[in-house]
């Protein structure tokens, strides 16, 4: 049975309720003071976000496949991040920054070459000639960074992105879902497809070399 609040304690409850408001007010105020001066805001922004510069650059570089574009996008993303820094209250600075880098990269990708975004795959190039290449042969070539780079650059953007986030940044599925803006349940299947395609591309290149 749901009992009613005992009468004699009703006033005590009200006292309890008024207290926390004072405490919370102080907390909110403190936060504002921290960001009060632009200099202070910049200092805390740099302390939190500059350590993730390599991660930001790596992601942009894989998405754009071009060093100059990558640098421009990262610079733009940092500027955007700084402008909306006041809205950042979370604890995962890297994921937050990478989301902005990713969105900025896609804006440029869409502007430059819309074709790249979809998961179309050229069956003519990849459809034949590599069935004979065994996993063991791919494994032999798996230390060839140049080969892997070429194979990965062939993949659609959503695959390059998910492979970089998982293999290089070691992010969890949850973080990847947040950054790539897909449901958490999709991460595993997309990652599996990306890996399968990467293996296919590697096999095709190794097959051609032979």
């Amino acid at each position, binding site marked *: 049975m749901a*009992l009613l609040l005992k009468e004699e304690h009703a006033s005590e409850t009200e006292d309890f309720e008024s207290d926390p408001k004072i405490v919370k007010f102080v907390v909110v105020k403190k936060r504002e003071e921290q960001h009060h001066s632009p200099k202070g805001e910049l200092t805390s922004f740099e302390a939190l976000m500059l350590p993730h510069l390599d991660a930001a650059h790596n992601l942009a570089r894989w998405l754009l496949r071009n060093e100059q574009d990558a640098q421009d996008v990262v610079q733009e993303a940092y500027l955007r991040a700084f402008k909306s820094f006041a809205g950042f209250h979370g604890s995962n600075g890297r994921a937050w920054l990478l989301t902005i880098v990713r969105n900025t990269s896609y804006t440029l990708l869409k502007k430059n070459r819309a074709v790249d975004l979809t998961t179309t795959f050229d069956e003519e190039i990849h459809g034949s000639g590599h069935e004979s290449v065994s*996993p063991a042969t791919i494994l032999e070539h798996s230390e060839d960074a140049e080969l892997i780079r070429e194979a990965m650059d062939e993949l659609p953007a959503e695959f390059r992105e998910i492979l970089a986030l998982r293999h290089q940044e070691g992010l969890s599925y949850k973080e990847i879902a947040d950054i790539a803006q897909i449901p958490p349940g999709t991460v595993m299947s997309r990652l599996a497809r990306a890996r399968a395609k990467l293996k296919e591309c590697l096999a095709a290149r190794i097959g051609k070399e032979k």
Partner: protein
Amino acid sequence: MNCEEATKLMDGYLDGELDPITSQTIEQHLRECHKCDQAYKTHGSLIRAIGNATPYYKAPAELRERIQSSLREEIAERPTRNVARDARSLFLRGQRGPRTVPSEIPWNWLSLAAAIIFAAIIALNLVPRLQRPGADQLLGTQLIASHVRSLMANHLTDVASSDQHTVKPWLDAKLDFAPAVVDLASEGFPLVGGRLDYLDNRPVAALVYQRRKHFINLFVWPAEPDATRSTKALTRQGYQLLHWVDSDFNYWAVSDVNDKDLQAFKQLFEEQIAHH
């Protein structure tokens, strides 16, 4: 589990992203199925090798400098909203006033006073609005911390009993309110026990329920007299939080079960209370 299912889940298993039970089922299958075990080993070593050999594009040093200088430009361009400095310049002009233009003094003081009153009005209107999300966030963090701590420190319950008639009197004796305690074992949410906790600057009751291998902490304390009946669901740091208010109490359920299960839990809980 059959081979098709195992293949589907292989990448999740490889990445250690499956829940413990599914992981165990896959392990079991890999022990039994030589073909899948081979496929898993080959796939795993290949993916790891490729991952390790993928070139990592580190940021060049000049990019860091470019970013830092563009950020500095950005703050230099910002319109100064520094009230303190504006007020000081007004003040200084006012001091110089008597020697040059005497009539300027009251004018400046008036505008300064007006600015202060204006700022105060804005602040008074804004503060309560700012305060609410801040307060909710603080409470959310406290709730998750309590939930995690209860699982971590082996201090899930003060009174371990699946009998609601044991848990309820125990809590009633320790608190200045008497929360409703119901057992939902027949609906798949057995009561594990109760605990005292401290949240939102007051002692609260924590009822612990189990959903398969997961625990649900249900924090209960009296609702404010004017509280509106509302329901709110949040996801934070991978935990589900569900908040509702009935005529007597504030409820916050925290768990790592999925949102659907937690909603079902709430519904069952409310139904059971109504029957009591």
